[in-house]
C-alpha cells in the first residue's frame, strides 16, 4: 500500500501496520484520529464531513512524508487521510512511522500529524443531531391539553 493516501474509503489500522513492515525497523508507532461525539450547544456530533483541495493536499502529504523520512531517518511511513462523511468512532487519519529505534518513530509520527494539521488543505465540518426538545409541562392554569 502506498505511503500517502487521500481516499473516501475507510482506513484500516491492520493495513497501515502491514505497510510499515520492515525487518530493519524495530520501532513502529501508529496514530489514529477518530471522530468524537462532541457536543455543540446541546446537540451532538453525528458525523464529520472532510473535504480537501486534492492536488494541493496530496502535494502537502508527499512533502511531509519526504520531510519525515529525511529528518527522522524513518524506514517506512504511512500518511493516510480520509475524505467524505465519517461517522462517530470512524478513523479520519492514520499516521505511522517505522524506524530502527522507538525514539525516531515516536518523534516522526508526532511531527507528521502536527505538520498535517497545520499545512495540509483538508477541512472538516460537523453534522449534528439536534437536541431533543424537552417535553412540555402541562400548564397549571389551563389544565392538561385535550387528548
Amino acid at each position, binding site marked *: 500500500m502506498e505511503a500517502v493516501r487521500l481516499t473516501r474509503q475507510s482506513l484500516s489500522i491492520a493495513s497501515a501496520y502491514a505497510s510499515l513492515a520492515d525487518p530493519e525497523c524495530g520501532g513502529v508507532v501508529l496514530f489514529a484520529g477518530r471522530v468524537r461525539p462532541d457536543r455543540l450547544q446541546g446537540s451532538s456530533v453525528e458525523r464529520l464531513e472532510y473535504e480537501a483541495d486534492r492536488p*494541493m493536499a496530496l502535494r502537502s502529504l508527499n512533502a511531509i512524508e519526504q520531510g519525515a523520512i529525511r529528518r527522522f531517518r524513518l524506514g517506512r511511513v504511512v500518511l493516510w487521510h480520509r475524505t467524505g462523511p465519517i461517522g462517530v468512532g470512524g478513523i479520519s487519519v492514520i499516521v505511522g512511522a517505522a524506524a530502527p529505534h522507538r525514539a525516531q518513530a515516536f518523534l516522526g509520527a508526532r511531527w507528521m500529524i502536527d505538520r498535517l494539521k497545520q499545512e495540509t488543505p483538508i477541512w472538516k465540518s460537523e453534522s449534528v443531531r439536534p437536541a431533543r426538545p424537552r417535553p412540555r409541562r402541562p400548564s397549571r392554569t389551563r389544565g392538561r391539553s385535550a387528548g
Partner: protein
Amino acid sequence: MAGTVRVLLFASAREAVGSSQLQPKVEPAGIGLTELVERLGLEFPRLRPVLRVSRLVVNGEYIGSKHVTLRAGDEVAIHPPYSGG
C-alpha cells in the same frame, strides 16, 4: 481577449458563497489579486471575514503577496484555516 479566472472555494468560503466555484470575468489586461479579492468581498459580504483569515493559492502556488496579476485561465483557490486530522 477578455475571459474568466476560476475561483475555487473550500469549506467556510464555499458556505459563504453558496458555491464551490466562481468564474469572474477579467479584462484582457488582467486583474490584480487584491482587486479580485475586494470584488469578491463586495459581492459576497459573508465571504469577507473568511478572506481575512484565508490563504490564497494561484495556479497551485501559495501567494505571500497580493501584488499578482491574474489573467484569463488563471486559477485562484481560497483556503480557509485548515482543520484536517
